[in-house]
């Protein structure tokens, strides 16, 4: 073969935080680092299952339903962390000196994970609520503003999907992410005020019991396990998004080049 098959070998730092393989050869988003995190996640999740389901005692008042909290607290923690990361990454994108689409992709990846874990939080929380309070839903300020946060970030993801260039997407969604930061405390505060005047007992207060020994430890394991899971998901998702962006940018060139190469044969 006279002419070697053309490959698009440039791998601009724009697309990759690992600077490894050229586009077209990347098969996996895994690296030794993420594999280590992945294994650590599996191990800690197994540990959590053992502690949460077997070793930790049932609660004196809540019984076995307290075990749901080892999931619930972990997922809500991840959701908050994820949305914080989205806000910080968005600010980093908007700040001219640190402007890079990598920040935008971290913001998007983190928001996706946050929405997923917020859904899990609401789901596990309502199951726990049914068992503990006898109802799936209470109009508590924290519960209600959590639901609002969930919807807000679904909106954020919709804004990300609007199309246009990557830069348009990045700027638009970064602004929306920062507006969400403005909005969420306001919603929380107003719902709190709303409940306050209705003089309903705040169910949130009842969860402020002191945790001891194995229960506290299980909760701690839960936070570690879910944090590792978040980190693993975030890095992989960010890389997949980078590949998608690269595909959008270079995909057509690549396909054209391949057709041309066929013609040369």
């Amino acid at each position, binding site marked *: 073969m006279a002419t070697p098959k053309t490959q698009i070998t440039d791998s601009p730092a724009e697309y990759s935080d690992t600077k490894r393989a050229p586009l077209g050869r990347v098969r996996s988003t895994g690296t030794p680092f993420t594999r280590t995190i992945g294994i650590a996640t599996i191990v800690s999740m197994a540990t959590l299952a053992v502690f949460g389901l077997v070793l930790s005692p049932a609660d004196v008042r809540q019984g076995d339903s307290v075990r749901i909290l080892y999931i619930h607290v972990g997922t809500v923690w991840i959701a908050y962390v994820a949305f914080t990361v989205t806000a910080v990454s968005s600010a980093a994108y908007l700040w001219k000196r640190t402007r890079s689409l990598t920040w935008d992709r971290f913001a998007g990846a983190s928001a996706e994970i946050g929405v997923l874990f917020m859904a899990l939080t609401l789901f596990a929380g309502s199951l726990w609520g049914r068992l503990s309070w006898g109802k799936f839903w209470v109009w508590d300020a924290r519960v209600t503003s959590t639901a609002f946060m969930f919807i807000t970030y679904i*909106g954020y993801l919709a*804004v990300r999907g*609007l199309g246009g260039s990557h830069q348009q997407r990045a700027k638009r969604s970064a*602004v929306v992410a920062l507006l969400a930061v*403005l909005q969420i405390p306001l*919603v929380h505060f107003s719902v709190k*005020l*709303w409940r306050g*005047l209705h003089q309903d007992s705040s169910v949130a207060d009842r969860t402020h019991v002191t945790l001891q020994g194995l229960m506290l430890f299980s909760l701690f394991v839960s936070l570690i396990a879910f944090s590792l899971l978040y980190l693993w998901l975030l890095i992989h998702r960010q890389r997949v998004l980078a590949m998608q962006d690269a595909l959008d940018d270079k995909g057509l060139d690549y396909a054209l080049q391949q057709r041309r190469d066929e013609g040369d044969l």
Partner: protein
Amino acid sequence: MLRVARLLAAKDLRIEARSRIVTNQVLPFAAIVMVMFAFALNSDAVVSRVAPGLVWLATLFSLLVLVQRAFAIESADGATDALRAAGVDPAGIFLGKAMALAVQLAVLEIVLLLSAVVLYRAQLRLSGVVLLVTTLVAATCGLALVGTLYGGLAAGVRGRETLLPLLLLPVVAPVLIGATRATEAALGTGGAAVADGWPWVGLLAVFVALFGVGGTLAFGPLIEE
């Protein structure tokens, strides 16, 4: 900036005055929503108890329509691009559009409030007039600012009709809560005292301040494309 805003607001209002879309389509829509609420709730006592909330809910639904309309007139002929090409300050565009929207909303709210008096037997009282007017002004400003902000974002993109409600409704939840409680206090619904309403006006004021500043800063980047 303020001169730009005034000119833009005047332009928008002139378009509305000539096209009569607001009076001929949005107001009847809001009125039918009020009637439908009565159908759904099916009780004079319940309807008169929740009248303030229904007024504000109908306002929010109409806000969605008004915002779509306010940006449809811009994006249809690429007017926003022309404005930007003319070097008009985005903050001026933002405030101008918000001012025009606020005027339309205020008209709508007064009509809705009167329809609540007629249809739901809501009682207006003299001692609550100051509170009521303040609430109307504060809530209208808040809704107009946020509506313009997210309307500008959704303008000119595919799927804007469905995106706008998803983005806008969660944001205006504090306005719904604050304005409803303040209006209840002003009207004395459910035995509320006038003095109970002022903290809610405070909430509305905070909302207006935050989104006034935030929106002025954010609008430029949002419409720049």
